[in-house]
């Protein structure tokens, strides 16, 4: 390409300073989302279901008194 011809680009469909959030679109951080997800217990603890949907019960501790540490 010669130096005089600029690189051909498409028409920009967003302004550089457009905010990344559009009102009305759901936000992952919204209140209530944490509780909706599986494996989170109300007291801040969690179960293996937090990490996996495949036989999660098998990854829970064998003794219910043990801390339930979900796989990473």
């Amino acid at each position, binding site marked *: 390409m010669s130096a005089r011809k600029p690189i051909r680009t498409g028409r920009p469909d967003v302004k550089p300073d457009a905010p990344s959030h559009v009102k009305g679109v759901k936000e992952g*951080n919204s209140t209530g989302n*944490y509780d909706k997800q599986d494996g989170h217990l109300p007291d801040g603890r969690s179960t293996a279901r937090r990490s996996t949907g495949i036989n999660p019960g098998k990854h829970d501790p064998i003794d219910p008194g043990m801390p339930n540490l*979900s796989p990473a």
Partner: protein
Amino acid sequence: MTTRTAGRGQETGTERELVEMSWDPITRIIGNLGIYTKIDFNNREVVECRSTSSLFRGYSVFMKGKDPRDAHFITSRICGICGDNHATCSIYAQNMAYGVKPPPLAEWIINLGEAAEYMFDHTLFQDNLVFVDYCEQMVKQTNPSLLRRAETTEAPNARIHGYRTIADVMRAFNPFEGDVYREALQVSRVTREMCCLMEGRHVHPSTLYPGGVGTVATPQVFTDYLARLLRVLDFVKKAVPMNDDLFDFFYEALPGYEEVGRRRVMLGCWGAFQDPAAVDYDYRNMADWGRKMFVTPGIVLDGELLTTNLVDINLGIRILLGSSYYDDWQSEETFVTHDPLGNPVDQRHPWNQTTLPKPQKRDLEGGNYSWVMSPRWYDDRTGDHLALDTGGGPLARLWATALAGLVDTGTVRATGGSVEINLPKSRALPEMSFEWKVPRWANTIERNRARVYFVAYAAAMACYFVEQAMGEVRAGRTQVFSDFDVPDEAIGCGFHEAVRGVLSHHMVIRDGKIANYHPYPPTPWNASPRDSFGTPGPYEDAVQGLPIFEENGPDSFKGIDIMRTVRSFDPCLPCGVHMYLGDGKVLQQVHSPTFGAAG
């Protein structure tokens, strides 16, 4: 804070022969730092100094209109070495604006990541960059007689660090070749890994968010951190006594060296390491949870602790102009008239600042000469606008924490006049204790000495944090995120310590978007030019009146004492120094890293 007009032993009004000398750029800083001096070689004194910055960033301009939840990802890019400090500070400001309190484990994880960052950055800067100015190769060129004396001076703590004489210590600092230089590179790699374990990535964290973190809190992640920490402890235990030996030698061998870089004790620390049991990110309780931080916020003036109240600290911040390339915003919009406690907020406060850049020619003789503004702290008792410095970060942190006497974790205890640091047994060395005592001066040597003590402080704190985090995990409390909604209208402020000192982020949200955002990192405080009252900034103040101990004359002058002083403030990594002599002779010195190889 005064500009000297006469040198030592010289009567006022007599003629002085001044040589202009400049170092521009001293690089890796927010903008390019240049130091312009006038030196009286006959009286061996720097008479005048101006610090300039030739780069405009404009974060406060382009943050407007952005989604506030992006603030920490964007502002992290302010710095290529302490980006995670910016991210953390921005998250503190966002937490306040959104009214969200992260779970305790999230706070411990952030604290662990930040502790690793302090260890990483201070080690890299101290051993790989500051000590180039103190290494054998450099001292041989600037102060040969000092090196001769170092060869015969036994190092008092030789049995701990293994270097028999002070000259051996200096040889260990030689770039590329010295043992300390090379070991520090390894340590800074390991400490970066520790930061990555907690924050996902270094320097721009990927797992820190308002409301918590995304780090999956498994026992493995904390044991990985601990295993690395114990390696680092070995290095720290040797570094502290070695630094003490070196710096004590300078005082002893060069009487009067305490005057180098000395300025009035005017230190600011905005606090670091939140205590999850206390912090709720509510501005109205900020004084209380601020005092519970594991590095106490405070302002030290002439050796006395003025305040530890973050609300007072916040309301006292004033951004002055005077020698900066900006138009005044006095008649612009006032975003925040009163804080949530009802206190009036000044138009010169960051919440109300409007950045109006006005590029122009640099005028070092009474005109504007820097892109850096002049942040000051308004002391309402005296009406002074104090040009606080951070002492490179550690000096202010340790000083404020020591005087406040509030921190006591077992591993670290502030006594009111000192800070005791207890490090547990590590791989090679038994448990050891250090005590950082409040020094007599705020000068170049003490800024550098405090740095190594703060590495020990951060390491001792990390030991405490990792225990607390493991306690949470063992109890099964693995929650690391609290959800929140972004309000349409809100304000927030975050106070933290970047590695090299005070860091604040002030945010105003309107219509769910950022209406105003002003980060104030440490370097604008330290590198600020003369303000509208004519008060010089800390670099200028510390270099003005500086006695010269270098043995070279004007022709081969390296300005080592000036460079040591400016670098003691940790103006990020000084990798190249281009020196200009007033008579038109240009010297180019490559300072590091090729210095050792070429020398």
